[in-house]
């Protein structure tokens, strides 16, 4: 077995995992990953990530949708003008409905796409250090780095109360 790329700590307790993450950050670790079966605010706080840019895509998608909806309705109405019920060829009120629906449709699809993009899904290969228990009832913290860092990480995890620490 070659030298380990990282070390994973398996935690049965949420606060333990949070503590481990905290101490890793304190030690200035940059390259680590946390697995959890549920999104917990405690973890999020410990990781202190900055706001997800998904919202930007959401807004852009929504605006595209609006533009497309109105544009399509108007363009097709003008392409072959046919009067119905004596109403104007470009009747705004009904086109609002179309614009609204396309806003929602395209907006939400772009949002989902953005999530996949940013979260790196779909993930085909294996994730180093991932353990099926992490989708069940365990929390996992994986630290990467050189041998010295890994040794330190092992200690940190044990100190935080890891139920199990292993190399990957």
């Amino acid at each position, binding site marked *: 077995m070659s030298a380990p790329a990282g070390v994973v700590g398996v935690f*049965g*307790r*949420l*606060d*333990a995992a949070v503590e481990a993450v905290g101490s890793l950050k304190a030690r200035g670790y940059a390259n680590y*990953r*946390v*697995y*959890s*079966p*549920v999104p*917990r605010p*405690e*973890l999020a706080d410990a*990781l202190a*990530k900055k706001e*997800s840019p998904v*919202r930007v895509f*959401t807004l852009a998608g*929504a605006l595209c949708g609006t533009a497309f909806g109105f544009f399509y*309705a108007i363009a*097709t*109405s003008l*392409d*072959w003008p*046919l009067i*119905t*019920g004596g109403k104007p060829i470009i*009747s705004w009120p*009904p*086109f609002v*409905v*179309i614009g*609204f*629906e*396309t806003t*929602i*449709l395209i*907006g*939400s*699809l772009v*949002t*989902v796409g*953005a*999530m*996949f993009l*940013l*979260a*790196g899904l*779909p*993930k*085909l290969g294996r*994730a180093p250090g*991932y353990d*099926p228990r*992490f*989708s*069940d*009832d365990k929390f996992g913290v994986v630290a990467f780095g050189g041998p010295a860092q890994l040794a330190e990480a092992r200690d940190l995890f044990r100190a935080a*109360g890891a139920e199990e620490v292993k190399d990957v």
Partner: protein
Amino acid sequence: MATLATPVAAAPVHADAPPTYAETTRDVIATLQPPGRKYFAGMALVLAGLAFGAFCWGYQLRYGLGVTGYQPPIFWGSYITTFVFWVGIAHSGTLISAILLLFRSGWRTAVYRAAEMMTVFAVMTAGLFPILHLGRAWYAYWVFPYPNFRGVWSNFRSPLVWDVFAISTYLTVSATFLTMGLIPDVAAVRDQARGWRKKLYGMLSFGWKGSDREWHHFGRMYLYLAGFATPLVLSVHSVVSWDFAMAIVPGWHATIFAPYFVAGAIFSGCGMVITILVPLRKAFRLERYIRVSHFESLAKVCLLTASIVAYAYATEFFMAWYSGNPFERASFYSRAFGQYWWATWIMLTCNAFIPQLLWFKKVRTSVPTLFVISIFINIGMWFERFVIIVTGLSHEYEPWQWSYYVPRWPELGILVGSFCWFSMWFLLAIKFLPSVAIAEMKEALPPPLKGEAHR
């Protein structure tokens, strides 16, 4: 460990103690156990009904709409009624999963997955009806504004085209919403499965690992999706209501329709959720997760919306009288006391009177009673649409053209078929997908902390 967990033998000793993460995973995954004889019997029944519905439609396609009971000037009947019925059913799902998410009301977590499945399948059912009520269903695609050689488009001034956009958008978005919510749960199932199941769920989970990065963006996406779904759900039934409100038919042409229909939709939807959850909870022994308190909350929503609906009925009659419009007055008089009095009074009884029982906590907290009431709600809401559509058309401006319509067997066959179509998807879903949200369930549980004894 990597095999499917064995089903929980019996309910734990302390049933009301909150389950642990592990128990949650196992109990929910237990619902995916290979089904038993009852399940297959039910499925066979459902498929038979679906086959009959399909036969009825084929018969109608071959000979024309003459096989139905349509009797001019009643050009719309049970098909559009059933269409609106299913669209209405669809609504509570999104309400529970999206709106309650925004309101951060905790009780949704236990029921929202089932409700969302119901939504998607109900829209899939509703979407069939505008097509199979067409005189020339084989040209249904003409209503889509697709580029074509003829250079003709569809008429965006027609509420039916709004429907096309609203319904297809709603189907797409609600299906997406369901799929997204499923990703972490499917991942959990994947990690407990082996063999082809592992492969299948592996694909369905998009390789979800629950890493910090994934959760980070996932949370945002889910929130914004809910943000979109909320106005959407309100718009869709408003648009459906405008199919009627935009027409000049007495009894249809009313400004109250949009809110009135949305309330009715949520009312019928919650009713249907109860109708579905009661047997589901029993069959899968999910008492620990779907609790009586959840049913009570649903019942409260029903009570609220029932009251709104009842108020809308009253307003309609009042406005018909107060407007002084002779056509409106005649239409509503015939609605209450004319040929269709029976339909109207079924509607009023089921939607306005019976739900008033929910004022009593005893009723709200008795699951069997709720189940019975929910059945009445379903019947009542189907009749509400029947009354609006048919009595309106039967008693229009031209007295010479007044007439009377009752559905014929092909229509009833297709109605039955639609319920079977819906049930088929639902039966399949509950055996392949976790019908209670694992991750969100855990979210609602107290997290395991140091110093707690191992359970």
